């Protein structure tokens, strides 16, 4: 069993719009090791959510390859995909719209079990649902309640239980705690960490919140307008951010501590449009260091072990 559970090569997704071709994701490369977490970070419009959906083929990629456990799943039939989907799951951001309001907690959690015919007898299905509920910390008495009767934290636990129902190996967590209060966030993050240890799960953790991703990832990839601009082990990225965007992003986080003297790097202007983007570096218009070489988008290069960056400045120094 190889160490790498997921490998993505040149993943691209373009959407046709009235105003032109929208480059949501443009030639992304990364891999995830078994039992580890890759954090995918960026602000709105960077394409991280599209990446998450494309990995599971909820959105079909325009080009590129997705290789899961050594098998290329990019173009396989939907039928074969259903088998793979047992191993790959998704936890959604919004605990309100990701649960069918007309189904009870147990119906929601048991749906994948029933749809994939994992257990036949209702006794076994009930037992499995009870087990999952206990695993994620949902009280048994909530078996027949409806989502709207519960708070955001509990709803998110339902979503997690649902994702675990088929004993997946790999879970894409799409901003799983962004909609939750701070103390509930902490509860859910702890839960996700425990589950990872217990079941040797691999995660892709998509978020815009850098403090959370630092806490939670082994490796982090920073995205901007559909491209990865920097990728490094989490500790490295925070200690030594190299890309100007990463630096600005890190400096923008308000720190809940006094006396932290921090120079705030303010970016010029606003994010540029992902429709028909020009050849130049996508970050050029907002970058204070831009020079003539930046007229062409830089490749992602490894400048120190495991630390990748897409920036012409590396050539300068």
């Amino acid at each position, binding site marked *: 069993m190889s160490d790498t559970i997921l490998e993505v090569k040149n993943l691209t997704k373009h959407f046709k719009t009235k105003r032109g071709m929208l480059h949501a994701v443009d030639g992304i490369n990364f891999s995830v090791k078994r039992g580890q977490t890759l954090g995918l970070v960026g*602000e709105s419009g960077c394409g991280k959510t599209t990446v998450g959906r494309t990995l599971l083929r909820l959105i079909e990629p325009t080009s590129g390859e997705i290789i899961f456990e050594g098998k290329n799943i990019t173009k396989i039939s939907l039928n074969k995909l259903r088998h793979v989907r047992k191993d790959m799951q998704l936890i959604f951001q919004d605990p309100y719209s990701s649960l069918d309001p007309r189904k009870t907690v147990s119906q929601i959690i048991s749906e994948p079990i029933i749809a994939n015919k994992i257990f036949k007898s209702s006794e076994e299905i009930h037992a499995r649902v009870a087990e999952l509920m206990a695993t994620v910390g949902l009280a048994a008495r909530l078996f027949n309640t409806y989502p709207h009767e519960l708070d955001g934290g509990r709803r998110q636990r339902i979503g997690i239980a649902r994702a675990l129902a088929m004993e997946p190996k790999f879970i894409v967590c799409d901003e799983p705690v962004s909609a939750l*209060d701070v103390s509930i966030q902490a509860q859910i993050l702890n839960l996700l960490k425990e589950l990872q240890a217990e079941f040797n799960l691999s995660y892709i953790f998509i978020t815009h919140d850098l403090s959370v991703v630092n806490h939670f990832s082994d490796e982090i990839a920073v995205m901007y307008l559909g491209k990865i601009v920097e990728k490094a082990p989490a500790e490295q990225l925070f200690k030594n951010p190299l890309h100007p965007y990463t630096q600005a992003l890190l400096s923008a986080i308000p720190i809940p501590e006094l006396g932290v003297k921090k120079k705030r790097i303010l970016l010029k202007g606003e994010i540029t449009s992902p429709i028909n983007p020009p050849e130049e570096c996508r970050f050029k218009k907002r970058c204070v260091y831009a020079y003539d070489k930046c007229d062409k988008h830089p490749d992602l290069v490894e400048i120190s072990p495991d630390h990748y960056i897409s920036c012409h400045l590396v050539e300068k120094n």
Partner: protein
Amino acid sequence: MDKNNLVLDVKNLFVRYETEDGIVRAVNGLNLQIERGKAIGLVGETGAGKTTTALSLLRLIPKPPGVEECDKMVLDGLDMLSLSVKELEKVRGKDISMIFQDPMTALNPVFTVGDQIAESIFLHEEVTYAEARKRAIEMLEVVGIPGERANEYPHQFSGGMKQRVVIAIALACHPKLLIADEPTTALDVTIQAQVLELMKDLRKQYNTSLIMITHDLGIVAEICDEVAVMYSGNIVEKGTLEDVFNKTKHPYTEGLFNSLPNINDRKAMLTPIKGLMPDPTNIPVGCPFHPRCPYMDEDCKKPQWERAISDTHYVRCSAYDRPGFHIKRRER
């Protein structure tokens, strides 16, 4: 605290909503005093009563089902409790102003941004509409938007810029007190940084007092002078930044700090506060936090009171009656 220089003085504010399912006790005996020119962060989680407090200060609580009781609410010398509706309309926007969380829905899509800013000026000051329009353009420039864009419509602006327009409207008449209700939550973090810098500059320029409602302690550290931590409708701890961040006293405040992922220490497991904030129709007796508090004892079920730690710092926690008691989070 300089009692003669208060821009806001609120004593004993109670707000409840009487509904079919019970009485929702949103604000329970809140006291708040803000000095002129200072910024206070009103921190708490969902359901703590922060937005209700803000709406009450603007006298915008719908009655029914809302019921308000308050001993004193004075805004820069004006007794807010005795004003008629017409008088309140003059005060809102001019002396006290509010920014809401979602810039996407705060602007009217069928009016230009210039008109929306000008409307506020025109309603409150004795000027012609043309004058108001001119000042609106100036205001746009102040918030960093080119004046030529005054004739554009909200949908032509991005989220961050819309929020700047909203700030421009709120500050157009130079109010004495600005209430900002989670103004940057819906924005990206780099845009949030820009908007926070803008707010800091504007505060200095106009000497506006600010109530910054947020759940993000980082924002509070950046932009505020004082902090008030709210839980279940009351302030459980209040003080300067130094007091609350480095000399934390209340167990709930401690719990909030412990739940935060620490950028400097990645490997640490987060220690969330167990349980949930109580249902506002069913608030525990005495200290509303006691069921979740690791330091709880029987005295916590008795009525709580504001205990002064220093001139600037107070806490609502009967545990400090016990000799030698202190929470684990020590002075830093």
